[in-house]
């Protein structure tokens, strides 16, 4: 039996995944598919790898669970060098979700979700309970869906099952390779929202690959942007990336409208408000609400200002100017 893998018992308590000078060069190629890359990913962090195709983001992801073996460097997960852990053992402790979902078509939804627990020799009863719990968690009624087959489900439903399956053994780490990439835009939006809510509850350490910068900005705690030559162009929070793109590539990759998009990432509580005693002017909002949500409320109510609970009042003009002039240091993401 190879070295046992115990998630969550790492020596460094706050770093779950550590990439140390990890690189990949495929045989016969004269360029690195992944250039030496070092990133520490904190426990419970949602890191998005984004970039055009061929930038090495998927290769990087697949090196974490050793579906691709690194050519150089080390990857540590939960305080263990993955090179010294049996690959199958390692993968059973890491959730894996891919764009094509990859449900086994000849197994029922319940059996698909229970695959990893079964490999870990859980009892039948425990697997059954876990399957129902997970189907519930991803918004599928267990009684309706447990014994259906994958082809009877829509693409969005299948990917919910894919997420449930990845969560089955409660792994501390999830790797997701464009999980919502093949789903229609409306359903994708729903799934993103739901997944954010789910993540707020389960706090997994997630590495998520996408080529869609909007998805990255929406989901990530931090975003790593790679360019076509597999160079890490910028690694930062969504707000910081929108506020100060590291270079021309990042700027063009973000595209137009960075200032407007920042509005949905900034919270009104972070803006300097004018202390005000009277609250009679109209609507009162929570400091945790985003600037764009508050603007929407103010404009919809036909007003020109709002009172931030416990802070003071903000006018539309204040908000727009303060947003535009913000420097990164004052921002709490």
């Amino acid at each position, binding site marked *: 039996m190879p070295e046992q893998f115990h998630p969550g018992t790492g020596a460094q308590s706050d770093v779950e995944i550590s990439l140390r000078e990890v690189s990949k060069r495929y045989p016969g190629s004269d360029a690195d598919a992944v250039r030496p890359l070092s990133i520490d990913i904190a426990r419970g962090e949602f890191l998005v790898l984004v970039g055009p195709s061929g930038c090495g983001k998927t290769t990087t992801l697949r090196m974490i*669970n050793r*579906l691709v073996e690194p050519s150089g460097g080390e990857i540590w997960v939960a305080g263990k060098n993955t090179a010294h852990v049996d*690959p*199958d*053992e*390692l*993968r*059973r*402790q890491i959730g*894996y979700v*891919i*764009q*094509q*979902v*990859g*449900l*086994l*078509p*000849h*197994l*029922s939804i319940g059996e698909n979700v229970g*695959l*990893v627990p079964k*490999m870990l020799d859980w009892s039948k009863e425990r697997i059954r309970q876990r399957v129902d719990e997970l189907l519930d968690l991803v918004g599928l009624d267990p009684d309706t869906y447990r014994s259906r*087959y*994958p*082809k009877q489900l829509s693409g969005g439903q299948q990917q919910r099952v*894919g997420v449930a*399956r990845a969560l089955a053994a409660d792994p501390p780490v999830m*790797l997701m390779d464009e999980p919502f990439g093949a789903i229609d835009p409306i359903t994708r939006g729903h799934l993103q929202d739901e997944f954010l809510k789910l993540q707020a509850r389960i706090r997994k350490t997630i590495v998520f690959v996408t080529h869609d910068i909007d998805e990255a900005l929406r989901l990530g705690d931090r975003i790593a942007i790679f360019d076509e030559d597999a160079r890490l162009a910028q690694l930062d929070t969504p707000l910081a990336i929108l506020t100060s793109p590291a270079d021309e590539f990042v700027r063009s990759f973000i595209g137009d409208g960075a200032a407007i998009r920042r509005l949905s990432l900034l919270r009104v509580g972070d803006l300097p408000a004018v202390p005000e005693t009277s609250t009679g002017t109209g609507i009162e909002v929570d400091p945790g609400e985003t600037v764009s949500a508050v603007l929407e409320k103010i404009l919809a109510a036909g007003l020109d200002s709002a009172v931030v609970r416990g802070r003071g009042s903000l006018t539309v003009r204040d908000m727009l100017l303060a947003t535009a002039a913000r420097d990164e240091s004052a921002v709490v993401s």
Partner: protein
Amino acid sequence: MTRALGLRDNATAQASAEAAPRSSFVLPLVAGLLVAGVLIYIQVADLDAIEARSLAFGELLVRLGEHVRLVIVSTLVVVALGVPLGILLSRPAAGPLQAPVLAVANAGQAIPSIGILVLLALLFDVGFAMAVISLVVYALLPVLRNTMVGLRHVDRSIIDAARGMGMGSRRILFTVELPLAVPVMLAGIRVALILNVGVATLATYTDAGGLGDLIERGIVFYRMPILLSGCLLTIALALLVDWLAGVAETRLRPRGL
């Protein structure tokens, strides 16, 4: 080579896809009518001594039994050889062996069975075993090829997901690849079965009996009733076996596919 193989793969895959709605009763009905027709003809026709002896009910049953036994045994051997061999050849490590083994299997099907039968009889002996060997040589290719094709056509992303969940290659073979390859493999086994029903009529030349006995005797003695009965019964058997194989194919196909 691979290209040509690919074309044939498609044909096989299509044949297996069409198999599903074939559980109609046309085939067994035709087979039943053929058998009934032969039996009635034997009863009412004016048969001479040779014809009467060859077409006695007991005699027919013996020939049919020999034929069915040849088909079953040779098909079992073909499956026992072809499926494991196909699995081994589809493993990445066996890549370089694929082409030569397929070439041999191709040659096996290209050589007429009657040639193999006569060769075996000259070199070794006549009898049941020799008949089975020549049937196996002839029918191995479809089972071997369809096993490989079935495994190769399993969706890569499903295997990727399975690996990503921590399944080892043996577990992937048995819980993912083989179940998903079953429909194509079954189509190959069905082809082998039908080939065997037909080719087993030649077993009479190596003294292994079968319905071919009737055909051969009909020709040698120039007795149309015997020749015709042998032909019609063989056809009826082939139709029945094909129908049974089709039903089995539908039944054995994993649910959810």
